[in-house]
């Protein structure tokens, strides 16, 4: 079985799905000749032609709007937006159009579109290129939001997203694009949207995280004292998120720490903490803790690692929650 990076796993999924379904069209800035800003679409234009892997001008509203038009007509567009910050110009199309057509047309017009967006910090980029806006899109009924934390999940989730009948925002954590390799099956498979993954099982405390932060959680767990047993849940899908997995785990452990890169206020961590208190109130032995980015603009790279949740901050939260 090949050992692939997250970038290679996504590229493989795109190629295999395009091979199987001629209705799939990729469009975005530099996705063709250059293979994408992070080289995720490398080689696809040469293989599938410029009719299917389309270089577009720098025009996110136009890219997103055209992709929605393609989807309305029954094709399966996969627009790429180069950085999550560039979703700004496309926000109108995504939230006012794509998210609403199924409702607005009572199911007659649907948008089977997968929007691929590199997300998050940790690559020394300026702030507009390092944000974690997943909660904004999770807060938009009609959209699904996915964020893998491993090459295996990236391939399986992307295939699910492409085959999904509704619009999916597929966030790719750029910090772990090439951070590590793992075994990824050559054949096609799906990882279901809406299902979390228990990365490590444990009995004393539950950590819930997603995206690149999962790696920071694993690093923190390596530093834990022997006598604390921690369960780590990788959410994988931000919306619709797997409430059952979280509830089941926290009812077992009685303690919960949520880790996210995004600013603390009104993030997914807040939503998860609420779900925990709604469903696990009598099981809780300590208040739910959140380890998050700060309620500030994402800093430029010299301070970036202070902003992002790191192993030390996660460890501190886990220890204080365990000792409560």
């Amino acid at each position, binding site marked *: 079985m090949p050992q692939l990076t997250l970038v290679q796993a996504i590229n493989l999924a795109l190629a295999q799905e395009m091979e199987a379904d001629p209705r799939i069209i990729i469009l975005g800035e530099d996705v063709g000749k250059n293979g994408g800003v992070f080289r995720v679409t490398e080689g696809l234009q040469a293989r599938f032609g410029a009719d299917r892997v389309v270089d577009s001008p720098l025009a996110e*509203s*136009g890219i997103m709007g*055209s*992709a929605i038009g393609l989807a309305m007509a029954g094709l399966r*567009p996969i627009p790429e937006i180069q950085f999550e910050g560039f979703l700004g110009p496309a926000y109108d199309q995504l939230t006012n159009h794509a998210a609403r*057509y199924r409702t607005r*047309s009572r199911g007659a017009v649907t948008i089977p579109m997968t929007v691929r967006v590199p997300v998050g910090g940790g690559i020394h980029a300026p702030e507009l290129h390092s944000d974690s806006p997943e909660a904004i899109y999770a807060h938009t009924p009609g959209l699904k939001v996915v964020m893998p934390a491993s090459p295996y999940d990236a391939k399986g989730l992307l295939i699910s997203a492409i085959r999904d009948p509704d619009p999916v925002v597929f966030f790719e954590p750029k910090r772990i694009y090439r951070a590590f390799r793992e075994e990824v099956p050559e054949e096609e498979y799906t990882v279901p949207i809406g299902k979390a993954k228990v990365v490590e099982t444990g009995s004393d405390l539950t950590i819930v995280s997603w995206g690149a932060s999962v790696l920071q959680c694993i690093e923190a767990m390596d530093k834990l004292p022997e006598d604390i047993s921690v369960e780590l849940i990788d959410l994988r899908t931000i919306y619709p998120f797997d409430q059952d997995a979280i509830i089941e785990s926290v009812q077992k452990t009685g303690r919960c720490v949520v880790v996210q890169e995004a600013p603390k206020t009104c993030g997914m961590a807040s939503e998860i903490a609420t779900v925990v208190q709604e469903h696990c109130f009598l099981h809780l032995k300590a208040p739910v803790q959140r380890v998050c980015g700060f309620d500030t603009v994402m800093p430029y790279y010299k301070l970036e690692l202070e902003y992002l949740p790191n192993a030390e901050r996660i460890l501190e939260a886990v220890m204080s929650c365990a000792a409560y």
Partner: protein
Amino acid sequence: MTSMPASAAPSPASGKSKYTLSAKLPDATLHKWLRDLMLIREFELKTMAAYQQAKIGGFCHIYIGQEAVVVGTFGAVNHDDPVVTAYRDHGHALARGMSARACMAEMFGKAAGCAKGKGGSMHMFDKPNWLFGGHGIVGAQTALGTGLAFAARYEYEVLKTGPKKVCLSYMGDGALNQGCFHEAQNLAGLYSLPVIFIVENNGYSMGTSIERGTTMAHNLCLKAAGYGIDAIQIDGMDVMSLYDQFKPFADKCRAEQRPGFVDLKTYRYQGHSMSDPQKYRTKEEVAKFQERDTIMTLSNYLLNERKSLSEAEYQKIQADVRDEVKDSVEFSENAPVPELSELYTDVYAEPMPNLSPSGEYTHGAKNPLL
């Protein structure tokens, strides 16, 4: 605002018809056009009345005065050519074949509406008639038109599953100033997509006259030239002369699979929306356009010049559309409101656990009116 009886209309200046292509169309086609124009006019009059009686919620934008635009341009293309438009969309829906009942019930918020009362006045969707929606965000629908044209060309050239199509992407003149429209034109020009951007240029974006809102208002075609898009200016007050000019233009866009831009001069007799004090124009200006009303012109041509329609037949059409619209209002008044469970339907293809704490997810039934 009903059209002037044809007998009172001025007779044509000369015996020789000024019309070219449209004059060669069969009587039945032109009579159908007249009926469509009159149906939209009557429908909009009753819409205004229902809105004033608070039977219609939300916002409401009336099409009266612009009817020739949809009837003439739709007449020049095929039924399976995709259409996307802005929020002044009742005329587009009716001219594309949506029933008056489905259109009116939608505005009443009733379950029998074209979108089960979930969309309202600005969001007329009718997929069987290739109408991909009215859209509320000014200019944003133009990129959807670009995408629909991309899909059409892809289906024709790559998948080989469809005919040569052309997409009609309507917009108001206010959309000229929105960024998305410029991205849409650039993409259409760049990729050579068969989309015609039809500016329904009624001279005002809400209360701002066009020359106060956009550059080159005297010659919008030059704007399109910047994107390598062929452009044409057409007077949109007379449905037959509109067709005469638009038909060859649309045929060329289809044949060459190229984009087009049409500055279609038209005029809305009513305010921007139902709550518009209209301080920005004079009654005299409105009257000047009403003198060239398309229903008056066409009925006059059919009755007095072409002599294909009798006075009795004209009165019959008038009575028929009145009945049809009256029926649509009565139908909408008596139609049931959507079930409470409709709050949870048609958000995603599959049920979602947390759409509502109590709602059972269901799929909406098909609308028999479409």
